[in-house]
């Protein structure tokens, strides 16, 4: 079997005037955790939506499991998506259904399991994320971290070949963050699937990733294992990994000289 699950070639994508991807190419292996990192606004979430076929690129191709995502018909794309799980930043739980029904939702939609079997499966998935006891709660009663764990249980309901995590650590307290970090690792190892983590939380992501790709300004800046990137000679990578305030990515947004600006304001 081909060891590459996601193959991105010469990807171009813009939002309005703004170029998000400008010839991005990268490969994501079939197993292990691949992290895609970069500063806010580099289009990491957009990349996941492109991989999932929710957005169309202007140029270039994305293959998932040997199929060109953007050449598929709607029905074929939906078949492919049954083998993909995605964890949204907000969790994206259906607010009118309980936790149990949220996890049961993809199973009810795509399988014909009887109620007893379905209950077993849902409780097992919820147990895996530690929220079996919360099965009867509504999404509005959950904290942000719990909502993400429920969404994770839902994402693994159909036993996908890959899970995409969109900023899983953003806005979490240290405990939920720790829980999510170890959950992503454990699930990846136990299910032996492909996990794609999009994030800019450097230490958490580096602690679990097998392979890291750093993107900026629409291009791949550097790839490697967390150790390799930690020892990177690139000033840019160094600034990003260590979170320096100034460096190749300037502290100041491009502007005309301060004096000129002040002078103009005084005249106006």
């Amino acid at each position, binding site marked *: 079997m081909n060891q590459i699950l996601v193959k991105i070639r010469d990807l171009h994508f813009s939002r309005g005037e703004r170029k998000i991807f400008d010839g991005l190419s990268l490969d994501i292996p079939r197993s292990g955790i691949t992290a895609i990192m970069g500063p806010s606004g580099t289009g990491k979430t957009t990349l996941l939506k492109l991989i999932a076929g*929710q957005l169309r690129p202007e140029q270039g191709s994305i293959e998932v499991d040997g199929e060109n995502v953007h050449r598929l018909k709607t029905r074929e794309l939906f078949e492919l998506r049954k083998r993909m799980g995605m964890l949204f930043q907000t969790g994206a739980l259906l607010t009118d259904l309980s936790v149990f029904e949220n996890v049961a939702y993809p199973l009810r939609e795509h399988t014909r399991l009887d109620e007893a079997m379905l209950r077993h499966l849902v409780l097992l998935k919820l147990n895996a994320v530690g929220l079996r006891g919360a099965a009867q709660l509504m999404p509005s009663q959950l904290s942000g971290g719990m909502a993400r764990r429920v969404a994770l249980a839902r994402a693994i309901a159909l036993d996908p070949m890959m899970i995409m995590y969109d900023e899983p650590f953003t806005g979490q307290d240290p405990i939920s963050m720790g829980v999510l970090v170890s959950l992503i690792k454990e699930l990846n190892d136990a299910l032996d699937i492909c996990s794609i983590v999009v994030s800019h939380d450097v230490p958490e992501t580096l602690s679990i990733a097998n392979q890291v790709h750093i993107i900026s300004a629409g291009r791949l800046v550097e790839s490697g294992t967390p150790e390799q990137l930690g020892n990177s000679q690139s000033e840019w990578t160094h600034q990003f990994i260590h979170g320096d305030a100034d460096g190749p990515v300037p502290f100041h947004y491009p502007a005309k000289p301060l004096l000129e600006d002040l002078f103009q304001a005084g005249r106006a």
Partner: protein
Amino acid sequence: MIDRLANLGATTLAAFERLGRASVFLLVVLASCTSLLRRPSLLVKQLYSVGVQTLIIVIVAGLFVGMVMALQSYYGLVDFGAEDSVGVMVVLSLLRELGPVVTALLFAGRAGSALTAEIGLMKATEQLSGMEMMAVNPMQRVMAPRFLAGVISMPLLATIFSAVGVLGAYLVAVQMLGLDYGPFWSQPQAKVDLYDDLYNGIIKSLVFGVVAAWIAVFEGYDCVPTSEGLGQATTRTVVYSSLAVLFLDFILTALMFSK
């Protein structure tokens, strides 16, 4: 000057582009409605929240509109000794115009705005994207049942509005003003035509139902997923639906009742 012209052009183009998107959206929703045959429970749930929950406001409004109509037509007709015609006047006005139109306006305000807000919020919280990622088509699961529920509810609500309105008129004309109940009921019985008046009124409300539900669902689906965008979309639903209903009412009336 050139700038203004360019702006006008851009605005016009954007409006037509949006109309095109809305038309494609309507076609997709219509095609998705067939999936409800396999999932009737989704439709029943929406019939409850779109139709049944709008019932109270329709009944109350219908009652008062009927009562006011009876009072006003009584004051106008009594000078000519024609107060016996209050019944037929109220019934015809309700069936032909007020029933479908006022119900559609109430529907846009009560159910339409709620539909837009609900769908818009689902979009903003990524629930629609989430469904797509679970290989579930939101057109079939979210849009189609809401649209169809609106289309089915509207004629029923308009009929109930008219019926309650006639009842309100009866209370005022016969019970309060002491008119004879014989002509109040017999004149409408003789004058109201099943096809010309009742059916045409129902056809009107069906058309209004399609338009109001279409606008409400599309505005929600097409909204900018921020709190500001959602507010604007909800406002647009009410404004566009109301204007569309009033405009279409004129067209339909001209077509239906021209002699």
